[in-house]
């Protein structure tokens, strides 16, 4: 399968997928029992005023008509307006995406740098003490609720020890943000040569990144270990041993053959992690797309919720395509098909 046909096939599949996702979120937010009209019209509004607001928002029409209008708007690039910020949801989300990605990227990168070697070592030391302990710790990582982990980190490192700045945004309130280039305050600060900004941004990043890393490392350890163990019990590793290859070479065969499934797993994990990242953002007042989405859900900001879900869906599709490309590079079998 060539690169082009693969990408084309992906794109063709993703259209009905996206329409389905749009339909379900559209219906879910409207059938969820939240009524934003009452909130927007205010507590003193009369029945007539409420009806006017409802008509203005287009919520008086039948559901399917509403969805049809919504789809028509999307085709024209308009995914709606936030009722709270009164701005285009598209702009709101676009400017927050780099903020979320920064946290996600560093978190998963750190989680992988810790998780993959630990998982591999656990597999190579199968059932020895390292394996047992890492399994226990990874189980702990699985069991901690995301928001609680964020709160504990803040409590210990900011409140008790004072090592960390308060979890209030991406840069200290006393420092003005750098000019936007990439959207990451750390990188933009470095690019602008402004060390105080970069340092402050780094200090703000550390705790939330650790939180995401802990949450992502637990499953990475577990799956890397399982994948490596499976490779180790495969026919070709057994045969490599029977051929008298030195243990180092056999280990290298195990590592290479584990790399594709591990990379695939981390890719799919990223798409699942974005939900946890939203909670971490909330705890650390991070102000990214995740926090925006959670706020929208809490306040019944329908267009913003739909925009947020659409962002998640597109993000997942993009990650899956990237993972497929990576597999194409790593795997001669995939390249041949």
């Amino acid at each position, binding site marked *: 399968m060539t690169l082009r046909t693969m990408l084309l096939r992906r794109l063709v599949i993703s259209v009905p997928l996206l329409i389905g996702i749009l339909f379900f979120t559209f219906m879910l937010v409207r059938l969820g029992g939240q009524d934003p009209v009452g909130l927007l019209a205010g507590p003193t509004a009369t029945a007539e005023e409420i009806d006017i607001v409802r008509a203005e928002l287009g919520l008086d029409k039948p559901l399917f008509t509403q969805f049809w209008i919504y789809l028509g708007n999307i085709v024209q690039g308009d995914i709606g307006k936030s009722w709270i910020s009164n701005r285009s949801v598209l702009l709101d989300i676009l400017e927050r995406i780099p903020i979320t990605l920064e946290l996600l990227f560093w978190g998963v990168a750190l989680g992988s740098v810790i998780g993959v070697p630990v998982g591999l070592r656990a597999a190579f030391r199968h059932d020895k003490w390292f394996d047992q302990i890492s399994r226990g710790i990874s189980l702990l990582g699985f069991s901690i609720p995301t928001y609680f982990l964020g709160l504990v980190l803040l409590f210990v490192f900011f409140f008790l020890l004072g090592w960390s700045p308060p979890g209030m945004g991406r840069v200290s309130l006393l420092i003005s943000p750098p000019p936007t280039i990439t959207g990451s305050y750390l990188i933009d600060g470095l690019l602008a040569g402004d060390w105080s900004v970069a340092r402050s941004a780094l200090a703000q990043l550390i705790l939330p990144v650790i939180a995401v890393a802990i949450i992502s490392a637990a499953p990475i350890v577990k799956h890397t270990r399982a994948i490596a163990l499976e490779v180790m019990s495969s026919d*070709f590793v*057994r045969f490599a041993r029977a*051929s*008298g*290859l030195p243990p180092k070479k056999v280990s290298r065969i195990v590592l290479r053959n584990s790399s594709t499934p591990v990379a695939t797993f981390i890719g799919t994990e990223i798409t699942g992690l974005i939900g946890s990242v939203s909670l971490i953002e909330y705890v650390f007042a991070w102000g990214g797309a995740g926090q925006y989405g959670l706020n929208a859900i809490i306040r019944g900001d329908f267009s913003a919720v739909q925009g947020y879900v659409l962002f998640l869906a597109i993000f997942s599709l993009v990650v899956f395509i990237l993972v497929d490309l990576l597999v194409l590079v790593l795997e001669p079998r995939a390249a041949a098909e």
Partner: protein
Amino acid sequence: MTLLRVKDLHTHFISRNLDNEIRIATALNGVSFELSRGEVLGLVGETGAGKSLTAYSIMNLLKPPARVVGGTVEFDGRNLRDLQSDDMNSLRGSEIAMVVQNPRSSLDPLTRIGEQLVRVHTAHSDATAATARARAVEILGSVGIPAPEERMQAWPHELSGGMAQRVLIAMALMNEPKLIIADEPTTGLDVTVQAQILDLLRELVETRNVAVMIITHDLGIVAHYCQRMAVMFAGRIVETGNVNSVFDNPAHPYTRTLIDATPERLRDLKHKVHGGGAPPNLYNLPTGCHYVERCRFADDVCNDPVAMEEVGAAHFAMCSHISAVRDGWLS
């Protein structure tokens, strides 16, 4: 000259059950046989009899909970059980080579064929990559792979089962082994390819003077390609001898049952096969003959320890009722 002498080999699976009691499955219970250069020995028996386990015990490739607990494996004057793991590793793939079942999944999927051939050679010699490469091309050609130069670049998934098995045999030959252990080398290949692979193995024995041990459950293969055979049951060799002698006048009721169960015999004999049934429980084997539960000649004597007895020229069997079995089998 005897190349491999296995004596009283015992391999156990030692584990603990949920109540933390030690449980021992006695999988090999005193396997003894010999093999010389230029000879082909067929090891036959039903699934679970311990054929492959014998091979892996000899190669010292067992993983817990399996463990060799007794016996000696003498190869070319050395006791393999005394070797350090490094020394054993340098023996594997060079002096003793293995050809395994499932050739396609036994090749490293992410490495080209040529590279895999080169790496078994360089792992066991000081050869440069270039000489190893030249040797690989030559050997690929000699095992009947067309266009060996091009095949060096092939990925394992591009090979058919028969081609992959030829590549494994080529890998076995890279270091001029003295002994090749072929563990069900033709299972899963179609019949014509099976014959080609076995012909190739036989040719190697004649031209390179190697010893070959073929593990199989196909008596046809044994009859056509082996000089000697050993029949295994429940971790013991119950009958061994020259192929002609064993087939003409089998002494052990289990051997007779195996032979009766081949398609040709089933057609000729038109009678029910005696002696089938479940394999005995390895956690609790009978004290005497292991075959006692499935044998229609069994009586009290069979619960006493039983030893190998000479039943013909260089032909041995482990049964207390040999004459009764030979005379009364068809009745």
